[in-house]
């Protein structure tokens, strides 16, 4: 159940040239949060900027009632967030949206994250570690400063990187790394910009046996422009095989087979 509650900042740090990591405490919100879900935060001291900002949770620790967020400081809202100090309170609404789910019997999982899309996958890798599920996490970014520093990744997670400019890890798209582990894994999880998710879908289809009825399950968490975050405004819809779906409430986690990437001749 989502609740309106203050999040008390416990730490907030820049972890690369462009990435930030904030940790907050909120028993009401954190106790029921799961990887894939997000919190909707007021990032303003006034009515400008006006709307809440959705942030995926990138670490969840129910015992200490703390959760973290991986973010870019790219607009007025997230720049406000970057200035919060320990002890500050942030008006928050959450947890919101759907969560990633391990399939029953899943033993080996592959995760593909682009940019700050790594956030929910880091939280999920933490759950995999707790559950004894083997995990390979692939991180893509434009260049090295967009990659998550390894100390933020659970220790048991096998971690690989790709950058568009080759400044760290493999040169090229993170999706090019998928082939090496696709046969090994039981399940795939992904989050990142839509072009990365689209490329991943193409890759998964190419790597899957043509006549296989049991295609490996792929769950994708979408990023979308939101206003209300709770399903009433219909701003954040994404095309699916069953019509437009609200990313905030019917997602952000979707089964890849449901997703479309274009509005076909209108909606």
């Amino acid at each position, binding site marked *: *159940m*989502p*609740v*309106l509650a203050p999040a008390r900042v416990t730490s907030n740090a820049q972890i690369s040239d462009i990435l930030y990591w904030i940790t907050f405490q909120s028993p009401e919100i954190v106790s029921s949060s799961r990887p894939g879900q997000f919190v909707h935060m*007021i990032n303003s001291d006034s*009515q*400008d*900027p*006006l*709307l*809440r900002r959705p942030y995926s949770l990138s670490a969840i620790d129910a015992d200490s009632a703390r959760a973290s967020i991986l973010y870019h400081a790219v607009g007025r809202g997230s720049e406000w967030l970057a200035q919060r100090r320990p002890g500050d309170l942030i*008006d928050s*609404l959450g947890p919101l949206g759907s969560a990633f789910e391990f399939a029953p019997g899943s033993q080996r999982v592959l995760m593909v994250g682009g940019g700050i899309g790594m956030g929910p996958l880091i939280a999920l890798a933490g759950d995999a570690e707790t559950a004894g599920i083997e995990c390979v996490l692939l991180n893509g970014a434009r260049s090295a400063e967009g990659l998550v520093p390894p100390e933020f990744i659970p220790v048991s997670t096998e971690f690989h990187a790709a950058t568009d400019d080759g400044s760290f890890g493999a040169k090229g798209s993170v999706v090019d790394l998928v082939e090496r582990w696709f046969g090994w894994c039981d399940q795939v999880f992904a989050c990142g910009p839509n072009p990365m998710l689209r490329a991943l879908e193409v890759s998964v289809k190419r790597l899957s046996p043509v006549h296989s009825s049991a295609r490996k399950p792929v769950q994708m968490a979408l990023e979308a*422009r939101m*206003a*209300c*975050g*709770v*399903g*009433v*405004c*219909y*701003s954040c*819809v*994404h095309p699916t095989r069953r*019509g*437009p779906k609200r990313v905030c409430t019917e997602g952000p986690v979707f089964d890849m087979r449901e997703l479309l990437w274009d*509005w076909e001749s*209108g*909606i």
Partner: protein
Amino acid sequence: MTASGTSGFGAEYARIVDLAKLGAMVTKTVTPRPRRGNLTPRTVETPSGMLNSIGLPNPGIEGLLAREGRAWESLGMPVIVSIAGGSASEFRDLAAALEGYRGVSAIEANFSCPNVEDGMEFATDPELLALATGAILEVSSLPLIVKLSPNVTDIRPLAVAAQQAGAHALTIMNTILGMKIDVHNRRPFIGATFAGLSGPAVRPVGVRLVYQAWPEVDIPIIGAGGIACADDALEYILAGASAVQVGTASFVRPTAALEVVEGIEDYLRNSEVGSIDRLVGLAHPEPA
């Protein structure tokens, strides 16, 4: 009350806040047939506001009544159903379909949605407005609220036309038509090109329109547009509104409409006026 389009079709907000203290909720607009809505992006933030062109996605009147028709009875507050049709006869059919649903307390005719094809016709032409208002009243036993648009040169003839056609109340105002252009790709930003501006930025326009309409009509006016706190609501009331709607502010704070109610109660306790009725239109000069 909640403004149409900002609290869903029924109990969507009930899992977060208890809205039963509100005077009413106005549903998202329902149309004769299901609609999927407009292309994305559908919204964008603006200085102290937002542009939206959602395009009235809804399950159609039959689908909505099947889903919510009975559930409205147990919502704990009056439900006002917002309707929009493409012709006077479609408005009449929508109103007829709502007859007999005990959970429906009133109809708000959305004559002024800027985000659908021909959505503005009824709100800009007094004759068409009167025609559609009359068509609803032919078949409806419910109170009828007519929602007017700010996208007109003079709102007064439209307010008068609605009253003369028999409307029981007016909602002033809907969103203000606007647009945003993406300077990087040099194209309109919003999928449907134009969009309605709402939020604190538009409040002065709404207050002005209520102030202008109030001397012209005897029916109650419901003020809407950029209300985020009690003082905002009181501006509308002093301009002539008997009730107010809270919309965009609920996206930011789901408790916003409740806070407006509590804030008005505080204001009344701390002032000598006693009843809110005595504040309505009080900002107007005394008649000579």
